[in-house]
């Protein structure tokens, strides 16, 4: 405990503005850190059936074990609360990089638990040991950009790290986000709005003690040299093949999916889940747009994966969450308009994908004659219309006109528009997918269906796109990947996207990988794309804490995080019925492109799920974890509390 941790868990009650601190150790010894401690706190601090907007719904912010230690990429915080977006509501989690996680630890806190409801709009300013509750009435009604500026001005410190909600969160828009330095993610912002909480601001100057600083420096340089080489190879390959490129590492590492495999027409679609063959696709390529409009590269580790874009007359912001997909989903070729829409989302604090797919759906409904312009405040939902897109964003964020219904969730709007509209809505518990294809990605489909946070797509899953790698001269990488798959999963099929064999193991590995990253607070891009795996994480843990961990131990912490998230949902009454993906993926084959005709096989898919539950030690009938599984992980208390609610699977007769 001497090294790595900041030391305290900070508990804040907004109702009476009380504050308390307890040692992190009480949780760290069993749950290590980050997302796992978040999950434990979430299970403990809330009761079954407490709604997302109830003062009793806790918001937990956690900075992982390695955060603030100087380890390359260890800059992430995780926010856990009940998701207001899911129907019915369930466990919600969102993570992001930036300066908040490190500053939290420099201020002395590994976790922050916020409960209650403020009487009037406030923001919390955490300045090392001092916790201030500050009046936010001047900030209420302001967008994210203005809010950030005003807070920095008011506190007179440009270095403060700010998490904030925009107007959307204040208005309890269920797709509102918590924004941090142009980063957002899963929509949990309305929970803050319900608490009258505009922002959480932190400034820490205390630093994090580490066990072996020299080792951290050495590991960082090692990782950097791998990335530098990849970047060099990529640029050389682009030059040799006459391809346009951007000299930024994230493109070299394939982080920017758009010009990589999405454009290779393997796993995306255009329009409302239609084929990939769209003649205007070329007009919406990322690289030419970025070459024209990107003014600065920024980010929270040397990979610096964010591009600041400036469009004259519009302003500066980022193109977050691969919104190049927007043009595809809406057949929108005006890239400046797409940027304008993204920028609006960043300012209002709304999730991009929660706008993009619903607008695509509305445009499909309009084309099919199911809705008319009258249903959308007189604005025709025509394909490719940037104005229609922007109208939707304004009306949702401000709860004006038809946007008021959409602000309560796309499923809510669908019910208003009638059964035909609802029948066309592809969703899972009210969450719409983005433009990631399930029909040729069985692992992604499985990972998504069992995801504890009802995520859009589980894309951590280990898989490769053979055609694309061959076309880009990376046969060697391909061979290595197959060899690795044979070794880890026993078959190369495990990493071939559309195969079923070996997938369960692959998904479980992905779940471990994702959660270990979130427990350590390290961006998964760094180990993944720098070619670093498990052993390097162990070295990093040793260098920071001085403790020798094994890979198995890290997996156990990951499993604890997962099962606690699952237990939260079980307590809420969820079972296997809630772990489905939409029937569309089993019925409508891919209409064109290299994967034309592919569709998910229901029987094989359900068999994968059976196998998944078996391997996890969960009951396949209900999907509920078994008592012995909780016990194996030392979670007897969780099992006990679920037993009382009748949420443990019945033990079968011993045969």
């Amino acid at each position, binding site marked *: 405990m001497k090294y790595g941790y900041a030391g305290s868990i900070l508990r804040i009650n907004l109702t009476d503005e009380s504050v308390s601190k307890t040692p992190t150790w009480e949780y760290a010894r069993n749950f290590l850190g980050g997302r796992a401690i978040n999950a434990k706190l979430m299970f403990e601090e809330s009761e079954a059936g407490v709604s997302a907007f109830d003062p009793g719904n806790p918001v937990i912010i956690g900075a992982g074990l390695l955060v603030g230690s100087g380890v390359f990429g260890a800059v992430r915080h995780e926010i856990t609360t009940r998701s207001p977006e899911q129907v019915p509501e369930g466990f919600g989690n969102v993570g992001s990089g930036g300066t908040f996680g490190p500053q939290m630890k420099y201020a002395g806190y590994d976790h922050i638990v916020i409960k209650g409801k403020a009487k009037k709009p406030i923001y919390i300013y955490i300045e090392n040991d001092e916790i201030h509750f500050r009046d936010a009435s001047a900030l209420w009604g302001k967008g994210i950009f203005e809010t950030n*500026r005003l807070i920095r001005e008011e506190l007179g410190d440009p270095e403060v790290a700010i998490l904030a909600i925009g107007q959307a969160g204040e208005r309890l828009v269920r797709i509102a986000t918590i924004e941090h330095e142009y980063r957002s993610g899963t929509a949990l912002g309305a929970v803050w709005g319900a608490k009258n909480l505009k922002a959480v601001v932190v400034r820490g100057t205390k630093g*994090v003690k580490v066990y072996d600083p020299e080792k951290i420096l050495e590991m*960082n340089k090692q990782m950097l040299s791998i990335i530098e080489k990849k970047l060099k190879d990529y640029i050389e390959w682009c030059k040799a093949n006459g391809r346009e490129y951007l000299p930024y590492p994230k493109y070299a590492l394939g982080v920017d999916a758009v010009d990589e495999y999405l454009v290779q027409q393997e796993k995306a679609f255009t329009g409302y889940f239609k084929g990939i063959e769209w003649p205007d696709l070329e007009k919406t390529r990322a690289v030419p747009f970025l070459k024209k409009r990107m003014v600065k590269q920024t980010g929270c580790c040397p*990979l610096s994966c964010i591009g*600041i874009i400036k469009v004259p007359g519009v302003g500066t912001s980022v193109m977050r969450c691969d919104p190049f997909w927007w043009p595809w989903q809406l057949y929108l070729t005006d890239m400046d308009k797409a940027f304008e829409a993204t920028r609006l989302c960043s300012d209002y604090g709304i999730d991009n994908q929660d706008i993009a797919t619903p607008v695509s759906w509305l445009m499909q409904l309009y084309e099919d004659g199911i809705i008319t312009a009258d249903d959308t405040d007189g604005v025709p939902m025509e394909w490719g219309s940037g104005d229609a897109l922007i109208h939707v964003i304004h009306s949702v964020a401000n709860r004006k006109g038809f946007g008021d219904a959409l602000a309560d969730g796309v499923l809510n709007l669908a019910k208003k528009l009638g059964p035909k509209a609802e029948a066309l809505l592809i969703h899972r518990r009210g969450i719409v997918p983005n433009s990631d294809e399930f029909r040729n990605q069985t692992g992604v489909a499985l990972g998504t269906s069992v995801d504890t946070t009802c995520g859009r797509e589980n894309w951590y899953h280990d898989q490769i796109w053979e055609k694309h790698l061959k076309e880009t001269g990376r046969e060697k990488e391909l061979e290595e990947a197959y060899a690795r798959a044979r070794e880890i999963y026993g078959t190369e099929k495990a990493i071939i996207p559309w195969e079923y064999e070996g997938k369960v193991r692959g998904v479980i590995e992905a779940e471990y990988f994702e959660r270990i990253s979130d427990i350590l607070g390290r961006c998964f891009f760094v180990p993944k794309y720098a070619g670093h795996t498990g052993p390097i994480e162990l070295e990093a843990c040793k260098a920071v804490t001085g403790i020798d961990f094994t890979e198995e131990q890290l997996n156990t912490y990951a499993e604890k995080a997962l099962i606690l998230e699952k237990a939260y949902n079980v307590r809420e009454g969820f079972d296997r019925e809630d772990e489905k993906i939409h029937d569309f993926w089993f019925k409508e084959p891919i209409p064109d492109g290299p994967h034309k005709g592919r569709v998910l096989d229901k029987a094989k898919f359900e068999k994968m799920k059976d196998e998944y539950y078996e391997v996890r030690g969960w009951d396949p009938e209900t999907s509920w974890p078994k008592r012995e599984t909780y016990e194996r992980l030392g979670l007897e208390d969780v099992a006990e509390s679920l037993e009382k609610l009748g949420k443990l699977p019945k033990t079968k007769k011993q045969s």
Partner: protein
Amino acid sequence: MTQRSKVILVDPDKCTSCKQCEKVCSLKHEGECNPELSRIKVLRNEIMGQYFVTVPVVCQQCEIPMCMEVCPTGAIYEDPATSAKLVDKERCIGCRMCVISCPLGAIEVHPVKHTAFKCDLCGGDPECVKICLAEALTYVDKDKIGFKERREGLKKLSDRLVLVAGMPADGATE
């Protein structure tokens, strides 16, 4: 041949504001990760939605170092091997004259030790340069940078510093 003539050259346009340099600097010099105690500081000034300026500030090992000139106890001296200006902690009385005098703000007084601290070029192998993937920091031979480049570099730096310190002109993002 000594490394006498090398400096850390800063290109603020390339800086991504990742602040990894601050982290490695404090690890190297303080044995803990604490950006507050870093010898290099990444200053940023940002109005979201409008502009974003960031400048790494680190000692330029001046030819005529103001810090050295004003120090009443003669605590600042030159490392003969690297030409880095170093602080003699025994002599330093923490009077902050150097802090006030440095045109870049590249020297500070340690909040716990109460003596001045600044970049020592890591003895001729600066950690910050090694971790800067964006190449905003390079460790270069003074002789190899011509007068013109140095002047241009300095102009860029001072322009950006003005932006960080105060309100920028409209539309200044690049």
